[in-house]
């Protein structure tokens, strides 16, 4: 059975948040890791889209496992924007979970993208690799991770700010 009740607001909010996150994180990649503009934008888009879609799938997979009373609380929240008191604490906890899982999914995508960049079927000659100047050190992976964490935190801070402004009057 189908009604005209559509999660349009959720879709629009998510699109807005994705745009914000992509803008912030791509500028972090460009600024601190010195990637070319296009690469940093590609990476930011792929990481964010991957993190959001996999998070959705995890939500769908975990939903049947949740207790029924919590499901009805969730329904109240989604349809009527009503939150009972114990659920408010749960939501704070959930935001933390979403933050951490999003971060780890972004790391995963970052690793995949870097692996994909080097991937090829033909055996490579190491001549090019060897001819690289020795003194130009590669960036340590630790720094890359740190930049991703900064970008992720910064974008989420802005998203939380937007949410706070939106829900100010309610």
């Amino acid at each position, binding site marked *: *059975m*189908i*009604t*005209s*009740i*559509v*999660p*349009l*607001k*959720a*879709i629009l*909010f*998510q699109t807005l948040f994705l745009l914000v996150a992509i803008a912030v994180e791509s500028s972090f990649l460009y600024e601190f890791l010195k990637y070319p503009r296009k*690469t940093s934008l*590609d*990476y930011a*888009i*792929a990481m964010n*889209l*991957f993190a*959001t*879609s996999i998070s*959705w*799938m995890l939500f*769908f997979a975990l*939903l049947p496992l949740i207790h029924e009373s919590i499901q*009805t609380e969730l*329904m109240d929240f*989604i*349809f*009527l*924007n009503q939150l009972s008191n114990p659920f408010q604490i749960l939501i704070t906890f959930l935001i933390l979970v979403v933050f951490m899982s999003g971060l780890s999914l972004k790391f995963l*995508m970052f690793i*995949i*993208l870097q692996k*994909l*960049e080097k*991937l*090829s*079927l033909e055996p490579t000659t190491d001549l090019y690799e060897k001819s690289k100047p020795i003194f130009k050190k590669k960036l340590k992976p630790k720094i890359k991770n740190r930049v991703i964490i900064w970008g992720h935190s910064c974008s989420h801070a802005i998203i939380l700010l937007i949410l706070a402004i*939106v*829900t100010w009057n*309610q």
Partner: protein
Amino acid sequence: MSNPLKKLVNLLTPPQPLSWQTLISLSLFSWAFALFASTVSDSDRMIAPRLINNFAFVFFIVGFFWFQQEKRWHILGIKLQPILVGLLISIWLFKDYSNSFELIIRHWPIIAGLVVIIPALFKQFKFSIPSPEQRPQLIMVLCLYLLIACWVNFYFLLQQWLFRDAQDNKYLTANLSSSLFVVRLLPPTLENLNEKIILNALENFIQNRIKNESWETVEFLIKNIENIELQFRQSPVYKFLQNEIEESSWTVEIEIVKLTEVTGYEMILSLIWKGAEEYRVEKRCQVKPSNDISDRSAKLSAEFTCANIQMIKGKRRNR
């Protein structure tokens, strides 16, 4: 020969044997054949027309894909090829299911994503890794289609929640303007939500009554359908609905049509609205013995499935 037909023939005349025109003509030919085969044999269980029909679909999908490969359609810079081909494949895969609409829409984005990815992995029918510039873009497109699929899935999850059970139908009629997630595109009166709620409650009631009963009991219950009607009128759900839907000038009726042994019974749940103009809304349901061959020792139970609501304005049928 008339002009549009001439144009069509001109369009579909293949410039060389291996071209999309050949495939499209093949599919049209197969469809004509399937139509012919289905008129010759009146039983729809015949395998030949269905097989030919499936072949026609495959020819058409491949032909359309090829056509789009040569002459791409764009809207605002977005390639329409994967979207349209994905829709065609989704229709082809899920057209025979009872809830085909939902399945088609749910799987459409994922299939569209695969339509983008899979051709990119092959070059002249050989597996090859796409160029380094293409790789992040392919991942982006795949993730985007996955996200859209998740949104569609979320929509259908919400629909499930809305109709979960009769008492919890409060969301259907509630004011949703404070929600951060959903909007109501049509006002509830335009959607005939009351009818949906009442008939849905009746369907659930019958479903619960029939569930876990043997087929003999179910047949007995069906023969005394007035009892079920009466029980429904005394049930708390009905009282709740009477209070909730204040124009309480409505009644429900159940009508039984006996079909063959295999197909069981048809149950017509109808709602009669006695407002300024009287009208009737119907929901047709099937009750049939479930042929569970796996364990014969078990009692034959009943299977209960319902179609969507039909609106029948005005006239009242004779009973």
